[in-house]
């Protein structure tokens, strides 16, 4: 990185030399030209006086104070040097102003200050490469949670857009190509507070390159990438990315889950969906013919996943030259009623409008609803700007690529254990999944459910960590209710349940109440906002923890301890 100060000085080199030379010549002139003092005696200006005179003349300050009145020879020389010094000053100032207006120079200055700001970050932050629809949603979500992000995007328009957007925690932005290792280093990939790198550019190749560079620069960094083809997904996973999100695959596999195990669909939808939403009822997808409009990447993923579940499918694709379309597909425009009729819309159970054109998808759904009002309608939304249109169009399920990616990534950032938990849970059968869902609903009741995790460490849960050194504590112990002062009975237990526990390399799914907690464990919890708050108290406050463990108020001072002991021994 070039230092902007050097650039400034290099450009100022010739004006400065001109200035020095003009001054030198002017001073020499005044020293050499003979003058006359007030008594009419010959007098020569010393260097000191000459420099003094030229200084106030050159800067156009123009004191009238001169030791003695000038002779005509001196006036002649003053006339010349007056213009020469003023011109050389103007030249220098002009060059300086032009340097400060130079976009390249300004960019250097900006980069320099950004690098300094990134260096001075003293809180956990994430690097986000790519600020499109997805990137802006994710940044919004992170800033709402109070997490700082550093954004890298090569397009200046997007960076300008970011600067005008309103954020709770304003992100830092760098306009550069993230696939260069230098840029990632600038963005702070090796910074001790950098928690992870998220690469969500539109282009799979960019994401792949960024992932490789990131992996080489700091192998232990948490890496979350977006990929839109199965090949890129496998490739990025192969060199150690923590999570790869393919929006089409993600949605298609969820939809397949909705057919096979609706309970799991609910779980996934809620855990990786928009935060602060209540858990939805499982969708009721009828068996029967399903129409998929569009056979691009999305249509193909859908076809593969739903076909595996044994759903009867029919593709409608307008592009005749499309290769490997399954047999029995209809070629034609799905936006037109005759095509839909030909595809058997009258007997169909559901329709998926999955082309990459928002207007077409809306039109498909409108036409299909007229032809068959009982259809289950799934619609794909590509652009963020059309959100209000999609809100107005009647549909049962919406596939919005940007939200799927940003919500999923956000969920993985907030609770890193979620990825492993969902992978294990995905093997559940419907009964087990439904049981888990009803248990969760029992815990959170009508409140908004919330996921969080904590580690049994001196930093995350100081009170618990300390107490564990004296005696064993069970999972069930810390979930017990608090006993209020003077009361004999405990409050209701904390409305939260442990979902998942990591101990060294082992995973424990749904740890029972009778399981021991050990130092170093990480636990994923599910509950309400309030219960998370309670739990924080129990984990970090020594007194609250003792209260919960013993079922009575414990004081913090020796005096109160003594008083209470005396009282109880009476």
């Amino acid at each position, binding site marked *: 990185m*070039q*230092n902007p100060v*050097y*650039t400034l*000085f*290099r450009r100022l*080199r010739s004006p*400065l*030399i001109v200035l*020095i*030379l003009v001054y*030198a010549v002017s*001073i*020499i002139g005044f*020293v050499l030209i003979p003058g006359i003092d007030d008594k009419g005696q010959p007098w020569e200006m*010393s*260097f*000191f*006086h000459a420099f003094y005179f030229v200084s106030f003349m050159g800067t156009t300050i123009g004191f009238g104070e001169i030791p003695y009145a000038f002779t005509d020879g001196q006036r002649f020389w003053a006339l010349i040097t007056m213009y020469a010094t003023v011109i050389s000053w103007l030249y220098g100032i002009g060059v300086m102003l032009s340097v400060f207006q130079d976009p390249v120079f300004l960019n250097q200055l900006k980069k320099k200050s950004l690098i300094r700001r990134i260096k001075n970050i003293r809180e956990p932050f994430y690097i986000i490469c790519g600020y499109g629809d997805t990137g802006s949603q994710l940044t919004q979500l992170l800033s709402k949670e109070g997490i700082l992000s550093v954004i890298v995007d090569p397009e200046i328009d997007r960076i300008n857009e970011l600067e005008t957007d309103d954020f709770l925690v304003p992100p830092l932005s760098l306009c550069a190509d993230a696939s260069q290792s230098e840029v990632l280093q600038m963005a702070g990939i090796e910074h001790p507070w950098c928690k992870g790198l998220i690469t969500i550019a539109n282009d799979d190749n960019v994401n792949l390159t960024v992932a490789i560079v990131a992996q080489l620069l700091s192998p232990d960094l948490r890496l979350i990438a977006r990929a839109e083809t199965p090949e890129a997904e496998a490739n990025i996973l192969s060199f150690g990315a923590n999570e790869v999100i393919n929006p089409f695959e993600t949605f298609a596999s969820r939809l397949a889950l909705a057919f096979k195990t609706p309970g799991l669909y609910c779980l996934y939808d809620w855990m990786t969906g928009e935060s602060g939403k209540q858990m939805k009822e499982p969708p009721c997808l009828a068996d029967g013919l399903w129409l998929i409009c569009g056979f691009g990447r999305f249509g193909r993923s859908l076809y593969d996943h739903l076909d595996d579940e044994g759903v009867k499918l029919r593709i409608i694709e307008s592009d005749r030259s499309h290769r490997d379309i399954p047999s029995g597909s209809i070629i034609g425009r799905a936006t037109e009623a005759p095509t839909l009729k030909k595809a058997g819309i009258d007997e169909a159970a559901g329709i998926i409008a999955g082309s990459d054109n928002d207007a077409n998808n809306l039109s498909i759904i409108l036409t299909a609803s007229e032809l068959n009002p009982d259809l289950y309608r799934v619609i794909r939304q590509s652009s963020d700007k059309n959100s209000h249109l999609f809100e107005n169009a009647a549909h049962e399920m919406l596939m919005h690529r940007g939200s799927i990616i940003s919500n999923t990534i956000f969920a993985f950032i907030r609770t890193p254990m979620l990825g492993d938990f969902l992978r294990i849970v995905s093997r559940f059968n419907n009964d087990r999944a439904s049981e888990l869902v009803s248990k969760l609903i029992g815990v959170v009741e009508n409140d908004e459910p919330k996921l969080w995790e904590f580690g049994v460490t001196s930093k995350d849960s100081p009170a618990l960590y300390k107490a564990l050194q004296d005696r064993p504590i069970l999972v069930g112990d810390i979930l017990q209710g608090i006993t209020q002062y003077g009361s004999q009975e405990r409050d209701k237990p904390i409305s939260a349940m442990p979902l998942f526990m990591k101990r060294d390399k082992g995973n424990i799914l749904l740890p029972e109440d009778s399981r021991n907690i050990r130092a170093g464990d990480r636990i994923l919890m599910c509950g309400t906002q309030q219960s998370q708050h309670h739990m924080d108290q129990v984990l970090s406050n020594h007194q609250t923890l003792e209260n919960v463990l013993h079922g009575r108020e414990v004081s913090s001072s020796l005096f109160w301890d003594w008083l209470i002991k005396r009282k109880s021994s009476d």
Partner: protein
Amino acid sequence: MNSEKVTFAFFIVLALTLNFGFFVGEMNDPGQHNVYELFAAIVVSLISTVLKVGDRSHLGAVFLATSLVADLQLIAAAVVWGMTTSVFGGVLDGASLATVVSLSGGALLANFISVALLVSDTIAVRR
């Protein structure tokens, strides 16, 4: 041949020679130290400083540092000269002149380091 290099070397060497010219002679004999030579040495030294500013190389940084030292010493010498002649009394006596000359001697050393660096750099670049 590179004209930029010629200018650069010219000013560095000229700064040294002018400085040397002022420095040689009896320490306290005003007849052997010319005030115009001191003035020229300062101007050339300032120009060579400006030429060195903005060079990113390690050698450039050392050039800049030595040049700044020379400027500082020469300007200090000029200030002592100006103060004695114009502010206190008006006669440059032996003691003040000795201060001026010794200050310029320090600048001479700094300029000498500059030239030594220049020569070693030239030798390091074969052909």
